[in-house]
């Protein structure tokens, strides 16, 4: 609290509050961090299982009212949903350990197959969106930090908040309206035109990532087609994250711009551009990398809505379909997989942060 009295001088002294407690090195940290994935995944999977079963069995949810009661009971018995919940839970966990996520009720496919088929599409969308987020968020964040408390800063910050305040499906709707309907320059929905899509899927050993497939096909028209379809979904989803990156970069660059070494560099006559671009930006990157881990969760949530808006046939689109069909086995499988992805990404991000910044380890 006394920090305030000294005003600007202390503003400059943003001292790192290192958490070095002696003992233990990078190795110990990595092991502990890795072991922490297990309870996280376990808790999430358990939570999802219990919540999904609290209203009843999946077959009644999917077929209830459409089948005569005897037939319904028979199917429930055949699927084993009349056993005690604890036994079912044990079964479910055992299945997960073997990589078996169950079989969907509505189209009778193994959930694992659904995950593999549609997961790549979601991955492709997420990567595009991250690229958009980096390209928009980071330079604008540096600019906002440089223009701190001036009109430009206010405009950029309102832009960042707008990015966050606009639901992706509304952003997608506006983008569609302007670029696909009014201007007619970009396709309305889907991942590629029907013809291209067929070519890509019939290709030997297709990866499911359309851009890679199109490049391997060697057809420039297909590459352009795939990219054109990706622009609007990527921008809609990317802007959501871009707003957060902008804020993050701004906050952290403001912090580093106040440090002594930046003042020292300025006194040596380093240009303002270089100060922001090199001296202040690089150290500010560490917290940004850490927060990206949390953005993966946001990105996956946003992907569900973006894919639904643009009929981008990925996991999110499929999830929405299964939700409508009340196919809760499929929903449970997809949600469980996403939980694992989030936990693993957070681990990777933490490891990266530990490798970059020794203060993180303890």
């Amino acid at each position, binding site marked *: 609290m006394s920090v305030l009295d000294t005003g600007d001088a202390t503003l400059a002294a943003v001292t790192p509050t290192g958490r070095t407690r002696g003992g233990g090195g990078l190795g110990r940290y990595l092991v502990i961090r890795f072991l922490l994935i297990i309870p996280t995944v376990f808790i999430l999977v358990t939570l*999802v299982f219990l919540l999904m079963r609290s209203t009843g069995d999946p077959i009644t949810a999917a077929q209830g009212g459409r089948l005569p009661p005897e037939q319904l009971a028979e199917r429930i018995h055949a699927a084993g949903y009349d056993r005690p919940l604890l036994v079912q839970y044990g079964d479910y966990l055992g299945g997960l350990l073997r990589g078996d996520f169950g079989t969907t009720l509505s189209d009778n496919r193994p959930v694992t197959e659904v995950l593999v088929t549609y997961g790549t599409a979601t991955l492709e969308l997420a990567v595009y969106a991250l690229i958009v987020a980096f390209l928009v968020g980071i330079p604008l964040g540096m600019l906002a930090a440089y223009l701190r408390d001036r009109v430009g*800063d206010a405009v950029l910050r309102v832009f960042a908040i707008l990015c966050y305040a606009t*639901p992706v499906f509304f952003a997608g709707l506006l983008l569609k309206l302007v670029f696909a*309907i009014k201007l007619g320059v970009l396709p309305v929905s889907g991942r590629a035109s029907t013809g291209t899509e067929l070519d890509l899927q019939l290709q030997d050993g297709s990866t499911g990532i359309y851009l890679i497939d199109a490049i391997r096909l060697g057809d420039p028209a297909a590459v352009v087609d795939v990219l054109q379809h990706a622009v609007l979904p990527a921008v809609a989803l990317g802007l959501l994250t871009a707003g957060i990156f902008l804020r993050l970069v701004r*906050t952290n660059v403001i912090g580093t711009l106040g440090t002594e070494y930046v003042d020292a560099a300025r006194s040596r006559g380093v240009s303002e551009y270089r100060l922001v671009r090199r001296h202040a930006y690089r150290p500010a990157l560490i917290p940004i990398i850490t927060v990206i881990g949390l953005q993966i969760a946001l990105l996956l949530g946003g992907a569900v809505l973006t894919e639904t808006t643009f009929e981008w046939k990925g996991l999110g689109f499929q999830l929405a379909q299964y939700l409508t069909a009340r196919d809760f086995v499929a929903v449970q499988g997809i949600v469980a997989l996403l939980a694992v992805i*989030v936990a693993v990404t957070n681990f990777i991000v933490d490891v990266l942060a530990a490798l970059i910044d020794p*203060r993180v380890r303890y």
Partner: protein
Amino acid sequence: MAASSTGAVAAQPTTSGRRRTWRDLPVVHQLRQSVGVQRGMLVAGLVLTGIFVAVALLAPLIAPYRWAQREADGRAFDTLSPPGGGHLLGTTQGGYDVLSRVLWGAQTALETMIVAVVLSIFVGVALGLVSGYVGGWLDRVLVVVGDAIYAFPTLLLAIVVSIAISGGQSSKWGGILAAAFSITVVYIPQYFRVIRSETVRIKAEAYVESAKVVGASTSRIMFRHVLRNATRTLPLIFTLNASEALLTLAGLGFLGFGIEPNSAAEWGYDLNRAVGDVTSGVWWTGLFPGLAIVLSVLGVTLVGESMNDLADPRLRGRRAVSAASGTVAATSVVPTGTLDTAGLETPSRDADEGFDR
């Protein structure tokens, strides 16, 4: 009013014994503390939020029709009629009046927001206080569980909770409660996290020690000494969470897991219906509910964001530093976690903190 008296307050020494007045109320205090652009953003946020709340409260008076009304004077509304004429913002495919649904939608949004935020504050604060004060294995378990939930995509969790509560469809209050409960489960970890870390910090303070020596009971220490001092960051999380609650409600509605269209007006559901209209060039069914979401979230977020900046000495406008009075919250609260230059306070690592302790 606030502007003219700022100087006078700054001149006063701010001792801890000073009487608390209306000027120390959360929003009023920040308004007086702010300057320039920051004050502009805070005021803009307060105005937008004020309009949102006013519309929500006055919807029965200002909306031309009921939310589920499709006819007046025995004549059915035209479907998809463009804005203007009898329907200021046009009508939808199903023959609803867009303006009425947008106005009534504010009411649904406000109700959900209040229920969700109040519930998560109560549960989150109670858990955080107990966890932080008692410590031990209870604390470790709660921290790990809280972190696991916190890392999960909120929308997906909200979907699962909504299925558990209502099977995914319901009446007005059933839908509002389902949405609010889903949002609550998602946001409890945030309140829990903040209150817990504050409690852990305060527990070590000398005045808690002396209270113990004097012989105060555990509950008295927890509620009188710890809780009172741990709640200073609550208004910040409150506003930031309120905006996330609005977005989650809209997301649930968009996926068809919100409130049935006949039970209440809901912006997300209306946008879901509008996605198909866009292809045929119909813009008014989607634009207006969408703008309603954006403006209300923008308003609440601007208030939260400004308060967050004002609470953080590094982000507060420089002139405001010398004029600053009274309490300064050390914790910065941002929707994505606490971000400081050292980058050591990011949520993902709190699990390790609990583990290590």
